[in-house]
């Protein structure tokens, strides 16, 4: 269960989703991936590490280079989950709560 939640934390981030889409069509090195973003290289590395840890990305040694591949099996598993739907409602409800906490009835 914890693992699942980690996966969704991973894909909750827009940059990480963008990385997944980039790598979906071809395997790429960290440098090639980072070249697509304005973000600093270490930040992209951190994103890659998170995606690899939760198995959405796989690393493959190719000579002296490490290529990143998408793990299609894991992605399919994720697509079946309703977690993003839950997140959407959770965001809405969090907003509702904070708005109503600040709510002052009109006199």
């Amino acid at each position, binding site marked *: 269960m914890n693992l699942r939640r980690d996966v969704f934390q991973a894909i909750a981030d*827009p940059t990480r989703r963008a990385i*997944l889409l980039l790598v979906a069509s071809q395997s790429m090195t960290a440098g090639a991936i980072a070249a*697509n973003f304005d973000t600093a290289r270490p930040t992209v590395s951190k994103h890659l590490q998170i995606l690899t840890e939760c198995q959405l990305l796989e690393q493959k040694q190719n000579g002296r280079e490490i290529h990143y591949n998408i793990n299609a099996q894991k992605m399919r598993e994720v*697509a079946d989950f309703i977690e993003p739907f839950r997140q959407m409602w*959770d965001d809405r409800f969090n907003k509702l709560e904070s708005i109503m906490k600040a709510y002052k009835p009109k006199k």
Partner: protein
Amino acid sequence: MELKTKINAEDGKQDITITREFDLPLELLFKAYAEPELIEQWMGTKVLKLESKKHGSWQFETTDAKGNVVFKANGVIHEFIPNHKITRTFEMDNTSFGVQLEITEFEKLTDDTSKVNMHVIYESVAQRDQLLKLPFAQGLNMAHNRIEALLKTLNN
């Protein structure tokens, strides 16, 4: 981390339940569902019409920064019992998702806390499953659009 919003969607069924506890008195929670300007804030949509009463109807619309309509939904209110229950239909315009029936119940827990329980019934199992996956698909789509925009700037 305890999940505040819980979804129960059993395999092969055409309904779901969404529950959530709030640090809000029941009256304030219900108000957020009854007043158009409050719904606009937490749902992030424009409320074109909302008749919070039995046999009333409602209409929401969301536009993007350029003014294009990206979401439009409407329905009728079947039952409206303040601080207790709202029963309504929900249908998105120009989609194949069909009509859903939403029964939303409000419950007082303590003087300062309350709970909402939404029971949503879809026309079919297939439509339910398709709708549940929508936010995921949209998330990927949005990322995709960003990449496209990025690639365009790189090509220029």
